[in-house]
Every structure is written in structure tokens, then in C-alpha cells.
């Protein structure tokens, strides 16, 4: 029973995919089945629409989500009414989504359901808090499309990353792309806990840290206005904290600075990094370093060897080579059940 024991350490888990059809739902079904066997009190919801019988983008077949007796779940009114299980409504949200209000329910007899959840990570956070408060052991969030934002440690405690032939039918490329995401997820957390607290408090803007650990506001509201700044952004120190998103443009800009080898860029967490492998590689090669305030806990990497376009890669070889490349075990979601 791979990686399930690890899950018991966390109160919330996100299952995110590097692309569509990377087997998130199969993986979720596996996890739910095992959690049921272990008697762990579980709640499930998703971000946006997921669990549709027919994939919304490619029109290909998708497995439904199976929930077991006693589990709590949140889905939209529309999907609640098409459920194939017995359940009781325990709460109705007053806000409306595109698919109606969000319904919280408890499963009375196991069966299948389509999941569609809150559209914002803020709302997800509140739901996780609610489930925690009502005494549940773990809340699992099923990701939608290739949204990684819910894997932010500020939303969920731990994550499972799904990858597969949908990312690339070429095994070498698949490994490269997965390794890059893996590398970002595992960016080191800053060691200075005091500084971590200080920086966490800043929700917007750009900040630098001097040698004494003092934080200075650069008075630049966003990285997009960085080039307009006439002052040297490293006038206080070599450590730059970007509270919002960090892009290729930022890394390129930082690469042109003469202190590149002393630079440390700090971002909130890996989901704030919107960078391509090439630019990231160029930046680090020159000596630039990136750290995160909070590191995500990656519980497992799962692989779906089949893509929606019909390509299938050799599962055993892919898992083996990915495990080697990443240094952590990778599981084939289709075979993991057996």
C-alpha cells in the first residue's frame, strides 16, 4: 500500500496534475479506497469542475469518483442531483457558482459522484478549516486542469503530483518536464525562521533583506514595474523577496545584475513561480538562488502511461526512469491498485 501511511500525517492533501489526463482521478480513487480501509475520516472536494464523466476538454472517457460511507464531500447543486450514491445534505452555501450552490453532504451508501468545488483557493481554505473543526482527519482536494495553485502550502498541507503521457509522449521530455516541476516543488525553504515570519506578513510588493536581517520595502508594487525603478533594487542587500508571482521576465532582469552570484530570490511558495525551464536554468547557472518561504510536502508522484491522444508509454520503464531521475518512487496509477 504505497504512500498511504504518509498521508495520515496531514490534515489536507491536494492532488494536482501537470496536465489534463495525468490520472488525478484514478489516483484520487486509489487514495479514497485506501483511506476507507484504514477508517480515516475523510472529506473530498475539488477546485472548479472535475470528475466529469466525459472530459470537458478532450471529450475522452474519465473515471468517476467513488466515495464511501461516512465520507463528507462538497459538490455543486447540479452535480449533487446527478449523484449515484445515497447521501444526506448537511449544508448549503449561499454563494452561487456556475453550477449552482455548493452542497456539503455525507455519504450514507457508497457510490459515484461528480465533483465540482469552490472556484477560489480562499474558499477552499475555509472549507478545509471547516472540516478540520468538525473533527475530520483529512480533506482531499481534487485538482482541475493543470492548476497548481491549490498545492500551495498555504492551502493544503501536502500534495500528490500526477504526470504522464499527456505531458509528453516522449519519455525523455516527460522526465525533463516532470523533473523541472519536481525541482520547483523541492526548492529549499529559508532557514531563518524569524525572517520567514517577517516576510510572510507582507502580502504585496517587493522587499529586500539586508545583512542584519532587516526587511526593507522597495516601494515597487509589482515585478512588472521593476524595470521602471531608477534606484538600485539591491541597495539594502542581496536578498529579494517577491510576495506575488515571479516570472521569466523577473529572472531575466535579475540575471543582468552584477551581483547575480550573491543573489537570493525568495518567493512565497513554488506555485508563485511562473518560469520556463530554460530561463530558470540560465538564472541558476549564473549563480542565482531561489528559496521559498514554505515548501510543499510532496507525498508521491503518480504516472498515467496513457494520454488522451492515444499514446501509451511503457509504464514500467517510465516509472523506473522517473524514480531514478527524481530520487523518489513513482507509481503507475493504473497498476497501483493491484
Amino acid at each position, binding site marked *: 500500500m504505497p504512500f498511504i501511511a504518509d498521508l495520515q500525517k496531514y490534515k489536507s492533501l491536494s492532488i494536482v496534475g501537470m496536465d489534463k489526463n495525468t490520472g488525478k482521478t484514478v489516483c484520487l480513487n486509489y487514495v479514497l*479506497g485506501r483511506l476507507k480501509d484504514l477508517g480515516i475520516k475523510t472529506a473530498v472536494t475539488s477546485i472548479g469542475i472535475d470528475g466529469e464523466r466525459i472530459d470537458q476538454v478532450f471529450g475522452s472517457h474519465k473515471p468517476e469518483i467513488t466515495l*464511501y*460511507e461516512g465520507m463528507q464531500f462538497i459538490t455543486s*447543486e447540479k452535480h*449533487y*442531483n446527478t449523484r*449515484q450514491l*445515497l*447521501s*444526506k*445534505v*448537511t*449544508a*448549503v452555501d*449561499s454563494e452561487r457558482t456556475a453550477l449552482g*450552490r455548493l*452542497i456539503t453532504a*455525507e455519504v*450514507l*451508501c*457508497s*457510490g459515484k459522484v461528480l465533483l465540482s468545488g469552490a472556484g477560489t483557493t480562499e474558499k477552499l481554505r475555509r472549507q478545509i478549516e471547516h472540516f478540520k473543526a468538525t473533527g475530520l482527519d483529512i480533506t482531499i482536494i481534487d485538482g482541475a486542469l493543470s492548476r497548481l495553485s491549490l498545492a500551495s502550502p498555504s492551502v493544503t498541507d501536502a500534495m500528490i503530483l500526477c504526470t504522464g503521457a499527456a505531458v509528453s509522449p516522449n519519455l525523455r521530455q516527460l522526465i525533463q518536464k516532470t523533473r523541472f516541476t519536481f525541482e520547483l516543488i523541492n526548492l529549499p525553504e529559508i532557514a531563518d525562521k524569524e525572517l520567514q515570519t517577517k516576510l510572510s506578513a507582507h502580502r504585496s510588493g517587493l522587499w529586500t533583506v539586508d545583512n542584519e536581517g532587516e526587511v526593507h520595502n522597495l516601494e515597487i508594487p509589482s515585478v512588472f514595474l521593476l524595470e521602471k525603478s531608477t534606484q538600485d533594487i539591491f541597495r539594502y542587500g542581496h536578498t529579494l523577496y517577491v510576495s506575488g508571482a515571479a516570472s521569466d521576465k523577473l529572472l531575466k532582469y535579475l540575471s543582468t545584475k552584477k551581483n547575480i552570484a550573491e543573489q537570493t530570490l525568495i518567493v512565497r511558495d513554488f506555485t508563485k513561480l511562473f518560469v520556463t525551464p530554460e530561463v530558470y536554468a540560465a538564472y541558476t547557472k549564473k549563480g542565482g538562488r531561489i528559496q521559498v518561504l514554505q515548501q510543499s510536502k510532496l507525498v508521491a508522484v503518480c504516472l498515467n502511461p496513457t494520454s488522451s491522444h492515444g499514446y501509451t508509454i511503457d509504464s514500467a520503464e517510465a516509472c523506473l526512469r522517473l524514480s531514478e531521475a527524481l530520487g523518489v518512487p513513482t507509481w503507475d496509477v493504473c497498476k497501483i*491498485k*493491484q
Partner: protein
Amino acid sequence: MLLKDVLTIESGLKYCIDELNIQSGVGRNYLMNLRWKTTPQDLEWEWTFVEEIVKQMQNNETAKLVGNIQHKLSGIHNIKQTIQNIENGDLLDDVQLFEVKNLALLSIEIASLAKEAGLDLLFLIPDLSEVAAILDPDHNNIAHFYIYESYDPRLAEVRNSLKQLTNNLDSRRNTLSEQEVAEWEAQITDIYNINQSIEDEVRKALVTKLSRHTLMLKAVLERLAYIDLSIAKAEQATRWSMCRPNISNTTIAYTNLFNPRLKHTLTERKQRYQNIDINISQGVCLITGANMAGKTVLLKTMGIAQMLAQFGFFVPAQEATITLMDKVVFCIGDEQNEMNGLSSFASEILKINEVVQESDRRKMLVLIDEPARTTNPTEGKAIVQAIASIMNHRNSYCLITTHYSHLGIDCRKLRVKGFADTEITGTITPQNINQYMDYTLQEDNSDSVPHEALRIAEILNCNPELITTAKNFLEN
């Protein structure tokens, strides 16, 4: 006239409305559709209710109960559509039935909290215990819902076999062939469908039972909306120290009247805000005073207070007496009429024309800020004289601010004291000018107005050349 129709007239009124802590959507809806009330009985009833709640909020024990009621109110959803569905005899799904049950349970809880807080006489919430009983066959008294087994003995049987089948399949899935799993799943679907058809029978029976209570459900929804709004009114009245007005037939009078938005802004900036005492009666009252003496704010505040009162709110003053009006008319001159191709004078004079025409039929509070200030002073003065002399004999209460002197009209005149010369220590800046202003209104029997425009221009640091030149022209 509904509240939502007049909200755009004066932004200060909108501020008061936006600052209400209303908990439910039905409450907000009720608020927007409040009617302008012109009968004393209606208003006294509203104010008495608000006053009752204000009293409860002053006591720690009962204030907590009112807080609990507010918390419960935040869970009230607008289920008008569902009630309509029941009336139509449509089948309700679990979510809709949950909503009805939730409303019933919450209304019972709110009624009991209200009783505990001593508000039972006025809180006439229809009792929905029967509705709750219909949707709570097991007497759990918890807001969750599904088609319970106790509704139909067949349900327990069907669901047991469903559970057995699913559990068996779950435990044996890995040992079965794909075809066997499919067969098994088909069997589960069949039983699930049987369950659904029994559920539908139950739903139909439930809707029939509920259809006897739709009037009650509607009444409860409306009453809860009303209670939500009334608590919000009382909470705001307490927060802002507002008072219950008295009704008179001859006067509008305020002690310590204040403009909520301006007071809030100045307090935030740690600046002084001066409350105003004022009383007016039928006819015209001219208000004069230096520039920046708060004349426009006074007019707006009078209008806001009158509107709040007649929509059943308390008013921003320490004491208040009001005469009920058919409407309030603002001619403040900041209307955006350029879009209609009208000059500022044209749009103003048309508005005044409307007032003059309407004032022989209706009793209005008319607030005119510096009429005819955008045209030549000779004709302008004559226009002001005409407005004042006509309106002075109408049934309306009319407040007019002006800088024209020697109008020669026999009406009431009030003057804002203005700069307190003696107290000035240190430099005056545009930012602190209001610290040196005395906004008190005093009776003024003279026919002249203050000449302080140049002095204020000086204080505002205008170009010295401009000021000396103006002074030279004045002297010659």
C-alpha cells in the same frame, strides 16, 4: 417611493445604508424595497420596534442574545422559488427540502431567542414546528436532510441490499473479471433506481404536506427579513448614537445633528466635528455664512435625516422633532446635467421651477444651495428674491443658502458664525481650517451677508497678486 429609488439622490444617504450590518439576502432585499412612510402610526410602530432592540442591546445579557439572533439570520437563504415550486406541486430535490427544513428550524430558534431576549411581543414569527416535523421524521432537530428511511418502510430494505451489494463488490472487485464487475454494477444501478422511484413517491407526499404551509413559509421569510433589518437599524443607531424622532406638525428641529459620513471621516483623521442645533418651520429659512462654513453639508444632512426618519430609521442627532413630508427635494447643484446639454444654470432653474410648481400641491422639505449663483448677480438676486417670496407662502419647509445680501424678504434668517477670530493661534492651512470655524447657527436680523471670500482665498494660499488686485478693485 422606495428606498432603492432615492439612494442615488444623495451619496450621504447611501453611506448610511451601506453601513448597515444586514445578515441575510432577504434582509437586504427588504431594505431596498422599503417604502417612504407618511403616516405617524406606521413610523411610530417602526421606531418603537427599533427602540425595543436598542434597549436590549444596552444590556450585556440580552445583547448577546440579539447577537445570536443575527448569527442565525445569516443562515437564512431566500427560498421564494422553492416555496413557489411547492405551490406548483413540483417535486423538490434534497437540496430544496433541506432549505425548507433549515428555514423552519432557524425560525424556531430565532423565535425562542427573541422570546428569551424579551422581544416576544413584537416578534410575531409564525410557528413552523409543523413544517419542521414533516421534514424531521426522526426528531433529530439537526439541519441535515435526505429521504429518511422512516418515510417509507421499503426504503430501509432497498438500501440494505444496496449497501450489501456495494460492499461486496468493493471487497471482491480485484478478484472479478471486467464483465463480472459490469454485471454487478448494473445490478447496483437497478436497485439504486428502485430506491430513487420510492424516494420520488415520498417527495410527492412531502410536497403535498408542505403545500398547506406555503403562506406561513412566505410570512416567516418576510418577518425574518424585517427582523434582520430592524436589528441592523438598532445596531447602527447604537453605534452612531442616533435618536428616535418625535413627530410634530409645525417644526423640524434637531439638537446636535451630525452628518454620519463627514463625522466618520473627520474622526478618522483625528479632526474635530461640530454638531449643529437647528429648527425650522413652514416657509423659507435663508442661511448665510462665509464660504467653507458648512452650509451645503447642513442642507445635505437635513435631507438625509428626514429621509432616514421617513424610511423608519433613527436619525443622526441627539434629539429630533420632525414634520412628515411628502418628499425631500435637493437642489444642491452637483447633478450631472451636462450630458443632457443643459448648462448649470439651466438645469438648476428647471429643478427650481419643478419645486415651485409642485409646492402648491405637496408638502416638501426643499433644500436649495445657493440658487442662481452661476448667472449675473443682478438677475440672480432677483431670482433668489422670487423663490424666497413664493416659497415663503407655501406649505413646504424650504432651506435656502445664499451669498446675496439685502434681499428684503420677510423670512427667517440664520447665519453660520464662521471664523472665530479671537481663538486663532498658529497658522491656518486648508487642512486645519475647520478647526477655526464655528459652525453654530444664530438668528440674523440684518439684511447683509459676511464678506470673507478674500480672507479665505488668502488662507488657502492663493497667489498674492490675485488677492491684492481684487482688494484694489474692491476699494475703488
